[in-house]
């Protein structure tokens, strides 16, 4: 049994091809040397704001906290021309509270589900959680994959579970969290990306991490997943979207991620239907940089409302 399972993983790795860690890190280091100035910087900062999934995922979340998060999502700053963010991202129990504030607006409600962040609950429970979140008004579901099963080589189980969640989503968009830090190697990240992409729908996302482990989105794992999305698109014509999450706190970082998108997937992925940032403190840094571009001076941190925690 175990022998057969481990061969499954080998076979998948062989099929999708290996990733060289040194090479990928060298590639992404070049993104950091790009120098984005003036209008191109303004464009990137605005675009990044529209891509933010403004997130609060804490045990101490309350309807009040979610209300202020929603307010921030709808009106990030009172300066002119500041766009709204893509979505708010909350725990399932908070979906109905968020719905009161953002339903009927362009800001969408994303809910983590499937026993986030570990995924260690019976499948039945996880699916029920997804259905409840959708019923409460979630437009998007952020699920976690079964990392244990993946590392065990039970790939079919991982894939079947994702397929089951797709079904439970109904019309909601699905984001599949690979939790890259637990998969550890770039080879695994690439393999898991394909595993997910083969059962999700066009426009669904693959997502790096929960933000609940020591290491989250990096340019490296972002690149591996973008490469996988490109290969899948060229082979099947299916456009899968991407969401790096956790650890992206500065505008400078966000721009480097966007450069990776521009140079790997091109113009069709430079919008919030195809690319998102799972972040919270990032938003205020983006606003701060936008204000700097507009006024020519850095504004004090307290001039931007703090309505989201650190993520």
């Amino acid at each position, binding site marked *: 049994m175990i022998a057969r399972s481990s061969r499954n993983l080998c076979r998948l790795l062989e099929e999708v091809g290996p990733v060289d860690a040194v090479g990928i890190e060298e590639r992404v280091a070049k993104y950091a040397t790009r120098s984005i100035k003036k209008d191109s910087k303004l464009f990137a900062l605005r675009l990044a704001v529209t891509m933010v999934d403004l997130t609060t995922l804490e045990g101490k979340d309350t309807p009040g906290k979610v209300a202020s998060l929603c307010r921030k999502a709808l009106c990030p700053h009172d300066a002119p021309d500041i766009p709204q963010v893509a979505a708010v991202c909350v725990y399932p129990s908070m979906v109905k509270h968020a719905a009161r504030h953002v339903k009927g607006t362009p800001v969408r409600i994303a809910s983590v589900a499937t026993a986030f962040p570990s995924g260690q609950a019976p499948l039945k429970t996880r699916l029920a959680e997804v259905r409840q979140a959708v019923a409460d008004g979630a437009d998007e579901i952020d699920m976690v994959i079964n990392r244990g099963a993946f590392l065990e080589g039970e790939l079919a189980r991982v894939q079947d579970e994702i397929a089951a969640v797709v079904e439970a989503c109904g019309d909601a968009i699905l984001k599949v969290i690979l939790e890259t830090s637990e998969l550890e190697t770039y080879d695994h990240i690439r393999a898991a990306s394909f595993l997910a992409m083969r059962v999700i729908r066009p426009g669904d996302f693959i997502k790096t991490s929960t933000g609940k482990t020591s290491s989250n989105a990096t340019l490296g794992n972002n690149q591996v997943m973008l490469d996988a999305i490109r290969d899948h698109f060229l082979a099947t*014509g299916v456009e899968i979207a991407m969401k790096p999450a956790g650890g992206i706190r500065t505008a400078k970082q966000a721009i480097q991620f966007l450069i990776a998108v521009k140079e790997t997937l091109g113009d069709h992925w430079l919008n919030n239907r195809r690319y998102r940032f799972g972040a919270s403190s990032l938003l205020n840094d983006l606003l701060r940089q936008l204000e700097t571009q507009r006024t020519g001076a850095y504004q004090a941190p307290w001039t931007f409302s703090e309505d989201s925690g650190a993520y």
Partner: protein
Amino acid sequence: MPAKKSPSRPSARELLFGDLWEFDPAPESAPASIDDRYGLFIGGKMVAPKSKKYFDSISPRDGKKLSEIAQANAADVDAAYQAAAHAFKSWSKLPGKERGKYLFRIARLLQDRSREFAVAETLDGGKPIRESRDFDLPMAAAHFFYHAGWADKLDYVAPGRSLAPLGVIGQVIPWNFPLLMLAWKIAPALATGNTVVLKPAETTSVTAMKFASILTDAGLPPGVVNIVTGAGETGAAVVNHPLAAKIAFTGSTEVGRIIQRALATTDKRLTLELGGKAANIVFEDAPLDQAVEGIVNGIFFNQGHVCCAGSRLLVQESIATEILARLKRRIAVLRVGDPLDKNTDIGAINSKEQLTRIQQLVQSGVDEGAEIHQPACKLPKSGFYFPPTVFSNVTQSQRIANEEIFGPVLSILTFRTPEEAIEKANNTPYGLSAGVWTDKGSRILMMASKLKAGVVWANTYNKFDPSSPFGGYKESGFGREGGKHGLLDYASLQ
């Protein structure tokens, strides 16, 4: 959400690298501090050439005059050798520890002024500022640091023996890495107690002359390093001077031959680092995206003006179509243009002469039936530029598969078995470097032992380190630079 079919998509299943998000120009603004005119650096002083002649140094970035460079004649070169021979008496007796201090000082001064030197290097040679800033300058400083460390440890290079300096070293360097090649030459020569007469390439003398000011600031005794500028005749005077104990040359195989012939009846030592036509070999199990990145780095680094450039891509037949498709997608996002722009990946071709040579060879490739692929990119109107170029369906007998192009031009050949890959890779008069891409460790070791090349890179390309010896087989020259091997080429074992 269902996928929306966008009407603007050019064709099914191709990515669109369009103009949705254009980068604004981001020119490096640090001043390069380039003088209007440079003399010769002889005996610790900037002196006017006895020839009284100067020639223009052209910036390939815009084709405009950058500075005036002195043209040294035989009398100037003789003065430089006399100064070097005089300085050798005391420099060679100086304890290694003291020589090391000068080298450390030079390395630190280079670091202090690295931004200024990077801009000057880019203006003078045309390489992207990203490369001169992130590669040339740090590597040049690293070579001085590394050899500074050796200066007081020469008694430990070979067990039970010590190293003695040779005397005055005549050094002639090329235009592709002007400052870095200068560092490769000067650092080991000084560490081992020799003195130097160095001639930079005529199209790229500016950073060498700027470097003279670093030597002055470092307080290096007069005459230890002398820099004479000029073209072929000056080079011949440096090579043929009777006071030279050794000649170190980096440049074309053609000139290397002339030098070796000229030295045939003398007791001068010689090291040559000449051309190359490196094979970059990609096996079907290789990590494809990283291999493509390595191929790009191997051939488009410094506009392909690299003697160890991976200009012959050998791809296993089963993945040839796939690699070509990925490569085309990758070069579509390379940014060609003003080398001073921080976002430029491929800068200007070093000289008009070189541009013409590249154009001729590319035309020969087209004429001989290879298939050419170039991305749609706008090139600046003035200056010397050439787009990144890939040839597929190349055969061994075509010129582009044999001759060193020294430009951003890649030839793709295919192979079926490892044996065939080795045969094709070694089927060249050159033997400077090679690359192997495979996920299989044992295959890397097998290939490395069978490839006749001075450097074999595995799953990477164009990686350098001062401690790693560099040099070639066959018509790529002899002698090594860097590492312990490099030191031995600048000293005699006692």
